[in-house]
């Protein structure tokens, strides 16, 4: 925490309370405070900094140093609304200042034009609530560029023939290539595909007082100890603090938004670190709590006027959840790749971004990346070939041989929105604060499963062309664990089939805005954070314009 931070009283009516400090919340805090507004950011998790980001796999991964804890915040899962949900860990997200951007892979693909207008292009799809966005790629393009330059994305512009248009190149060159990337690139070229350097939200050069990546190898799942990963913590939050108008208040678990007699939000009600209830007053509320917690908060805030959840006149709050389809093929090569060094991904391809349903027999599209995102313990427990010895000399041999020689091809794809797929409140289970737990309901659209199988087949072709000694992939299975949390308060022009308008304002409550993965109308091809951040920059502009013309209540 910097000394520049103001300390507001809960009774001070600040201009904005921003709930959540992740990919979207960080940027909204930075932009709104930068535009002269007084902002309080309420973050349910702790305020950790670089010195806390250790390489201890047990502390970070097994004990959830950075993530939602299954004992404090248990969850349930069911496949369909007809099923009774069972207690099971259903999702993971970053629960700390900086949110999930603190520990993500940092794949920073822009969405393409098609992602915004897919419904018009392909027509209705049975079983899916596919819709066009109320905005286009062209409208969002300047904000993608803003993310690349202000937050820090490395990459090589104009390298992929499938890339959408861009107004500016990347601000810095791509990260160095890994052995997995070279193998991927050579094999893909053999097959006539178009591999290119992965755009990554990780610095390849020192920038804005931050270090370049030191290739420590503890990246996915870990916080960056040198601030090279362009998390909200390392970027937007620090910039927001420097304005002197933004207070970051960690350990503040918001569980209710209340309305006044005129139907306007009055601020946010939260548990502080001692679990005392506090009320932060604000002129307007911006919820950026992620695609699971944002709809949960609205559902928890049900009142007389909105018995089914705040701002839920559409009935769509929590629904149309998309997790992204896809899967991992693991391959072992003759010589050491030493892919444990560095960040996860250095090469990707987008040849399959838009597949022709008439040719492949399903709707969807995706991309492939070459990666190694395993740390030693996780590797030993989960990344050896099926049928390997589980202990003894044979186990030690395969472990010792494979650790440096393994990489993965990750297929990432679309999820079609399905109305029943949702986050909702579990009727029985409660969290440690006594609040209803999150319930995940999910059954992949049949086309998503077909796409996953199709992407596995392409990954297999690629690995074969690369001359791997061994490869394997799990069977295609319906998902029951959520990482990408998309579409649950979707944006749209029609208040009957969407929760927010294109200004991120809820259709129902005039001073309540939502911006995070829940805003997305379609799932893209598997890498949502870049789009969430572009939307956050755009939302900040829209909200600022509304406030400046007096369209936000005082």
């Amino acid at each position, binding site marked *: 925490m910097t000394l520049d931070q103001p300390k507001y009283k809960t009774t001070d009516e600040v201009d904005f309370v921003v709930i959540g400090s992740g990919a979207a919340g960080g940027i909204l805090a930075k932009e709104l405070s930068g535009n002269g507004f007084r902002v309080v950011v309420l973050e349910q998790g702790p305020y950790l900094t670089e010195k806390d980001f250790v390489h201890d796999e047990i502390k970070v991964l097994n*004990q959830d140093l950075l993530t939602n804890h299954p004992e404090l915040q248990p969850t349930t899962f069911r496949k369909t609304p007809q099923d009774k949900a069972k207690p099971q860990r259903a999702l993971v997200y970053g629960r700390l200042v900086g949110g999930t951007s603190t520990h993500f892979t940092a794949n920073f693909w822009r969405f393409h034009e098609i992602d915004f207008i897919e419904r018009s292009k392909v027509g209705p799809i049975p079983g899916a609530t596919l819709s066009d966005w109320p905005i286009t790629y062209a409208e969002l393009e300047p904000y993608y560029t803003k993310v690349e330059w202000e937050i820090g994305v490395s990459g090589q512009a104009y390298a992929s023939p499938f890339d959408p248009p861009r107004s500016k190149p990347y601000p810095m060159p791509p990260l160095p290539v*890994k052995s997995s990337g070279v193998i991927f*690139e050579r094999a893909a070229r053999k097959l006539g595909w178009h591999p290119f350097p992965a755009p990554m939200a990780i610095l390849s050069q020192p920038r804005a007082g931050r270090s370049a990546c030191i290739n420590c190898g503890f990246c996915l799942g870990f916080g960056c100890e040198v601030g090279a990963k362009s998390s909200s913590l390392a970027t937007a939050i620090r910039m927001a603090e420097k304005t002197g108008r933004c207070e970051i208040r960690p350990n503040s678990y918001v569980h209710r938004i209340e309305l006044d007699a005129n139907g306007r939000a009055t601020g946010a009600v939260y548990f502080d670190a001692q679990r005392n209830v506090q009320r932060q007053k604000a002129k307007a509320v911006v919820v950026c709590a992620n695609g699971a917690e944002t709809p949960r908060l609205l559902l928890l805030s049900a009142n007389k006027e909105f018995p089914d959840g705040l701002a839920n006149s559409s009935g769509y709050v929590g629904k149309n959840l998309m997790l992204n389809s896809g899967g991992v093929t693991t391959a072992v090569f003759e010589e*050491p790749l*030493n892919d444990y060094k560095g960040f996860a991904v250095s090469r990707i391809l987008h040849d399959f971004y838009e597949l022709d349903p008439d040719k492949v027999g399903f709707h969807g599209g995706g991309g492939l990346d070459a990666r190694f995102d395993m740390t030693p313990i996780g590797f030993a427990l989960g990344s050896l070939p099926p049928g390997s010895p589980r202990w003894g000399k044979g186990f030690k041999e395969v472990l010792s041989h494979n650790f440096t020689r393994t990489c993965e091809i990750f297929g990432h794809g679309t999820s079609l929105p399905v109305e029943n797929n949702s986050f909702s409140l579990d009727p029985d289970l409660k969290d440690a604060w006594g609040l209803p737990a999150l319930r995940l309901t999910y059954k992949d659209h049949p086309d998503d499963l077909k796409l996953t199988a199709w992407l596995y087949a392409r990954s297999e072709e690629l690995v074969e062309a690369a001359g791997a000694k061994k490869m394997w992939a799990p069977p295609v299975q319906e998902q029951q664990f959520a990482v990408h949390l998309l579409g649950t308060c979707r944006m749209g022009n029609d208040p009957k089939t969407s929760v927010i308008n294109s200004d991120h304002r809820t259709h129902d409550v005039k001073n309540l805005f939502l911006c995070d993965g829940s805003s997305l109308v379609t799932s893209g091809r598997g890498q949502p954070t870049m789009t969430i951040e572009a939307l956050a920059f755009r939302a900040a502009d829209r909200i600022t314009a509304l406030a400046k013309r007096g369209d936000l209540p005082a």
Partner: protein
Amino acid sequence: MLSAAAHARQAAQSELLAKFEFFSAEQAVEVDAISARILPTTDTPGAHEAGVIFFIDRALVTFAKDDQKIYAEGLPELQANVRELFPSIAKFSAATPEQQDQILQSFDARSAAATGARQSRRGAATPSFFETVRLYTIMGFLIDPDSDKRGNLDGVGWKVIGREREHMFQPPFGYYDKDYPGWQPNPSDAEKTKS
């Protein structure tokens, strides 16, 4: 005769032995012997050299407190298994490595079946003693040696799997990227991206 280094090492280990926080010295010898079969000493160090026993001991009074019972109940069960298979052998650590492997194979199969039975009754599996020791042996062998968990002594576990114990790396990283000439567009793309 011991070399000076080996002597120093042995001294350091006996000092550590005095500092067991959960196990008795006797129990520690048995658990050490089990983990030494899970990751045996071969031409490279194994669980014993990596000090896995100290990691497990620390785990059982810190983050894995809940597993104390599994050890307390599992060790006597294992010893009963030893006497059943080899009536002349008093305890696991006294058996030859080959006998130990045989005991663990039988124990692993037996506890897998027992876990299955427990699972069907309660809906959730309680990990068996052997599975628990296996998990903690792997963790103790490969944990960040700079952590406070006492495992992966001197980083030997990382050495065994080929992970250099450095905090920063520079490219080239591996065999396939060392002669990489730099990214070039596909010849056919060069035309497309110009437009």
